[in-house]
């Protein structure tokens, strides 16, 4: 009994706390910050319309009824247009600091609080992409995303002689949380679809692509209306979502599933007005990218930079003095 318990604790410890390279987290932070910057800039067109006291919704709605008791956002307390504008500007600045990794932890906390406040202010304009951005903000806030590829790291290593382009090891629990979240997204999406008769009948994707108000770029008419193509795309979507939910934990299948997922989401982004949904999902995929791949890329960049410096040095030594 004690052995079983001890074994369980060891498995738990290994899964959550084994030190992992911070490479995926650092790249995810950069991708996430770019998405938040894009999201925030795109909100400028509707900031006052959707969120101000003079817009569509003069007050923050009762979140206990619409979301769940416990939901909150500080724009429910600070209701003025000035507070809204300040939140918007602070979010822009914090997202930029998160991007470059300066004061990374504080920037991530501010990004999370501002996103939460803006999204809670008007839940009627949110799609799944907005929700995923908010959820990602929570994990990014907990993770050591500034440990690499950041100004914070440069400030730490500039006197020690350590290379800037390196990825220290940190406890892996935040990366694991992101991976579990990705799995949950697809298990939930798959399960919700299996209850729908159009998904079971193989017609769902054809209907989804023909929703006129969501239409973005065109697809050939035959592809949208062909029963065979629709069946293939519908069942293909279900297979990919099942795979990303359950089989993404398998090392051999993982790269193929992630590539299929990227293709699926770029297809959705091409055809449908889903805002930042596809990019947020693809950013979450970075939690599953093997650190070795990112580190190999970093090593190649470092090598190229070092060769460039070495090649320039003799030329500079023989160069005439500037006048």
């Amino acid at each position, binding site marked *: 009994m004690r052995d079983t318990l001890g074994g369980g604790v060891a498995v738990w410890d290994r899964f959550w706390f084994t030190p992992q390279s911070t490479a995926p987290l650092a790249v995810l932070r950069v991708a996430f910050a770019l998405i938040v910057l894009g999201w925030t800039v795109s909100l400028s067109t509707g900031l006052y319309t959707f969120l101000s006291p003079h817009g569509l919704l003069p007050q923050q709605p009762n979140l206990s009824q619409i979301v769940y008791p416990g939901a909150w956002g500080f724009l429910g307390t600070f209701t003025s247009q000035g507070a809204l504008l300040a939140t918007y500007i602070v979010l822009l600045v914090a997202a930029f600091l998160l991007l470059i990794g300066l004061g990374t932890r504080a920037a991530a906390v501010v990004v999370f609080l501002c996103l939460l406040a803006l999204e809670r202010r008007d839940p009627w304009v949110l*799609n799944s992409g907005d929700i995923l951005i908010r959820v990602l903000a929570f994990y990014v806030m907990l993770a050591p995303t500034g440990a690499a590829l950041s100004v914070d790291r440069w400030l730490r290593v500039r006197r020690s002689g350590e290379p800037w382009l390196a990825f220290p090891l940190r406890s892996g629990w935040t990366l694991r949380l992101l991976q579990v979240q990705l799995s949950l997204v697809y298990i939930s999406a798959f399960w919700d679809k299996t*209850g729908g008769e159009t998904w079971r009948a193989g017609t*769902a994707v054809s209907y989804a692509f023909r929703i006129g108000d969501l239409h973005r770029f065109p697809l050939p008419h035959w592809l949208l*209306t062909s029963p065979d193509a629709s069946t293939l795309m519908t069942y293909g979507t279900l297979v990919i979502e099942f795979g990303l939910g359950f089989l993404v934990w398998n090392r051999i299948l993982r790269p193929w599933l992630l590539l299929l997922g990227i293709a699926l989401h770029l297809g959705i982004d091409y055809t449908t007005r889903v805002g930042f949904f596809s990019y947020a999902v693809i950013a979450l995929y970075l939690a599953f990218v093997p650190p070795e791949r990112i580190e190999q890329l970093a090593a190649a960049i470092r090598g190229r930079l070092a060769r460039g410096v070495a090649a320039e040095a003799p030329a500079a030594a023989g160069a005439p003095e500037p006048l």
Partner: protein
Amino acid sequence: MQSRIEGSRAGRIVISAALLFTVFALVVWNAPDSPLRRHLLVATGRYTAALGLDQNWAVFAPNPRTDSLKLIASVQFANGRSENWALPRGGSILGAYWDYRWLKWMEWTISPDNRPLWQATANYVARRLSRPGTPVSRVFLAEETSTNNPPGARPSAEPWFTTTFFHEQFPSAP
């Protein structure tokens, strides 16, 4: 600081407890609706909502809409003039990254049990189109719908039809 906490036994126990509860709360939130889920949600829902981890991945599920929708506001002014207002729509390249918010607003507004949003939309349109000396007197909200037929059927979609579902009269009306 974080590394020190993660490195200590006590720190790992605290983090493990938080992880266990968080993952459990996420699983409960994402679970299919059932009496058990509703029961467990009482214990975990506040935590999930307070941390902003409430989520819904039912994209095009359980079924995608079979209807294409438009929300139109017909506006009458006090001087007898009338005008139509339609949802702002952006271009395909960049506009798709802001006008999806209007599309979500439309979906919620058109749903039959969302009367407060009908009122909010009518008020917004009236405020936006009113001019000094020519206030808005009435706003009618209408839904235009075209139902898509199953793939392979002809025609692929039914003709558009319009249903007015709400109207609001404003005090400036004669």
